[in-house]
């Protein structure tokens, strides 16, 4: 187990460096000059533009910029935005918001999704199963923006239960509605994955053994059936957590949540390579960590899986 983790951690180094390198060159290859973009539609003053480029380190070759960037990164310096703010501060503001939103959405899809999936799987073909299938089909087919606007209109503008947008992005209570919208599609996938997995494992040999041993039904389902059926679901949830952390540009836009998606959208619009790369660096780390945890969870869930 320890060796497995160590090996995985070592493997992360080339993956990390590779992604950062690719992203660095991709953001720098975006059309348009990021320094000139500060003047918008008006013509940039050439003398001031040159001074800006010098300050931002954009007046040297792309290879030199890359070396400077990687050198700074290794010392924990993520660089500055065009406006002269530290990129790490921008990340520091957006990330806690997104962590809250993502975890809420994650818990929602996990709890509700697995519950629906479990009961559907156990009662295949019954009324509950059929309505769950219809509901999940509906969720999968409605685009997130549509769902967002419907919820906003119904709960905020018609019923006035909540404010239409999030007034304080750090307030968990206000983030519930965006989280439900954000988690709804994944919820449908989680429910369907769980259902299929449960239905299949019901016929497994170990289930028959467990029932034959006379174990109580609660234990048969909770310990044997559910645990074994969670493997495909955990795989999905692991990558989904990464996706949720990457920010939800559309949902954050509808509800005015000041998270990673919103910050990335602005940075890309302004052609701010340093900010975009900074966020991607953090997101790569999150993805790597999530996939490692998923792999370790396999062993916990299924005793047959062992890591040397």
């Amino acid at each position, binding site marked *: 187990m320890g060796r497995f983790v160590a090996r995985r951690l070592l493997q992360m180094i080339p993956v990390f460096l590779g992604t950062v390198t690719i992203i660095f060159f991709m953001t720098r290859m*975006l*059309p*348009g*000059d990021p320094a000139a*973009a*500060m*003047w*918008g*539609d*008006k*013509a940039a*003053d*050439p*003398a*001031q533009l*040159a*001074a*800006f480029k010098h*300050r931002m380190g954009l007046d040297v070759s792309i290879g030199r910029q890359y070396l400077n960037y990687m050198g700074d990164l290794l010392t924990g310096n993520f660089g500055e935005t*065009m*406006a*002269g*703010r530290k990129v790490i*501060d*921008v990340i520091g*503001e*957006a990330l806690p918001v997104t962590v809250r939103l993502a975890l809420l959405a994650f818990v929602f899809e996990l709890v509700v999704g697995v519950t629906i999936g479990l009961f559907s799987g156990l009662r295949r073909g019954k009324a509950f199963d059929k309505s769950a299938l219809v509901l999940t089909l509906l969720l999968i087919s409605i685009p997130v923006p549509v769902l967002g*606007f419907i919820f*906003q209109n119904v709960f*905020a*503008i018609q019923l*006035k239960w909540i*404010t*239409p*947008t999030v*007034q*304080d*992005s750090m307030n968990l209570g206000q983030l519930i509605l965006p989280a439900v919208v954000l988690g709804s599609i994944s919820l449908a996938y989680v429910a369907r994955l769980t259902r299929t997995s449960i239905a299949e494992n019901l016929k497994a040999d170990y289930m028959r053994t467990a029932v034959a041993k006379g174990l109580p039904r609660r234990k048969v389902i909770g310990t044997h059936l559910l645990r074994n059926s969670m493997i495909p679901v955990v795989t999905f949830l692991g990558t989904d957590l990464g996706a949720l952390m990457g920010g939800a540009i559309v949902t*954050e*836009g*509808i*509800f*005015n949540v*000041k998270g990673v998606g*919103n*910050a990335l*959208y*602005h940075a890309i*619009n*302004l*052609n701010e390579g340093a900010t975009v790369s900074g966020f991607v660096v953090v997101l790569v780390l999150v993805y790597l960590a999530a996939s490692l945890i998923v792999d370790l969870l396999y062993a916990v869930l299924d005793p047959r899986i062992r890591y040397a």
Partner: protein
Amino acid sequence: MPAGTRVRWAVVSATSVALVATGCGGNGGGSGGGSSDTSKTFTYQSSEPQNPLQPANANEVGGGRIVQNLFKGLADYDPSSGKLRMQAADKIDTSDAQTYNVTLKSGWTFHDGTAVTSKSFVDAWNWAASTKNNQINSSWFADIEGYADVHPASGNPTKDTMSGLTVQDDTHFTIKLSNKVSYFPYKLGYVAFSPLPEGFFKDPAGYGQKPVGNGPYEFVSWDHNSQVVTKTFANYQGVDKPKNGGVVFKMYTTAEAAYADLQSNNLDVMDQVPPSALANYKNDLGDRAIDAPQGGIQNVGFTLYQADWQGQDKAKVRQGLSMAIDRDTITKTVLQGSRKPATAWVAEGVEGYKSGTCGDFCTYNADKAKQLIQEGGGVPGNSIKITYNADGGHKEWVDAVCNSIRQATGVNCAGDPKTDFKTARAAITGHQINGLFRTGWVQDYPLNANFLADVYRTGAASNDTGYSSPEFDKLANEADQASSIQDTATGYQKAEEQLAIDMPAIPLWYYRTNSGFSTKVQNVTFDSFGNPAWTQVEVKG
């Protein structure tokens, strides 16, 4: 020169159905006339400032609006008429349009209690003009004598001060320009010409995060990406004393979110309703809806630097194309009334605006259009493309313009979308396009010279068409030498007539402010910059 902000521009250029504008004279106004509480603050839809809050660094709307409220220069523009009015200056005199004598009013102080003196202005301008201080609007000081010393075309500045600025005493200073610019006081209304307190120069970065100004509102806090809070400055000496307790600038990512908040009273005043709400916002908001002119114009420019479009005959072709565009129908249908058909190259309501300079050439007439194009030798290849940025909602009207041209004249016309605003700008300034492109102008200051000299003079920074007319340049130069603003404006009206003869760009329509306010506020009016008259907003008691 940049007057609009980065964001605003992106929007202008970009969001066709909803943004930017011209003209003066806000309308709108109050629903009801109930009592108001001068200690209460109101919220305004904003976006995160992209630069530190320094007066010469605020060229985008997010930061620009905040800085405008925290600082007040020698003069500003009356929100209702767009005319220049004195603020910190008692008077600005000149006898030759080159040397300006400024007399300050007494009693003005910064929010930290220190006095606003001649030195506060002169030091601030010298600091802002220097390339080494990296202020985006540093080129606004280019008219002042000695500018090249602090802002050389390349290399480091040789001096820290401009020789044209001389302090006489605490309330008097002179500005000497390197050339005659009769409308220079109009430029002084721009926020880049604000004064700065002594403490600023010791810590410009710190003051950029916690600005100390001399405007109607003082800075309270800046919660990044969330809000900037201001409160009324008790010792404000300007002519526009605030009727409210302060402005809270609340950051929104999308206009849709802001509009939803406005409808439920979680936001008091907004910028522009989202395109999706244009059709219904007047019904939704009733007498709380705003529809006011703005100082901005949408044009289609020609690549006059290409041989295909040169020569006097081709001017006829360009005039013909202009006549083939049915502006009335397109603004009513595709643009849902959010624009007003243009009849000149200067936006409505601006000082020196004269309607109808474009004459028949801006009036739809299919037969005449066809005839002019034939007389001019036709369009090269009988086919044109209009380049535009695809991220701004321009597609609908570009297609409509093309349809109109095709039906009226038989010339093939198609839109040529570029992925986004920056890409389109890079192609336009890099001369990498063919034929026609979407362009526009939003006023830096409400004077016709700004719409003409900065866009159509030979070699002007924003002259994207490559237009170069000796007649236009001569008339513009004469106007610059005039002895009064009125004469300048009249002079530029003459220069504008030359544009009808040459048609370097087709004027399409003027921008408007389509906005609204919540039930908690009243007396909300918008100026030609698309900003509310901040200090006049009343919060209901």
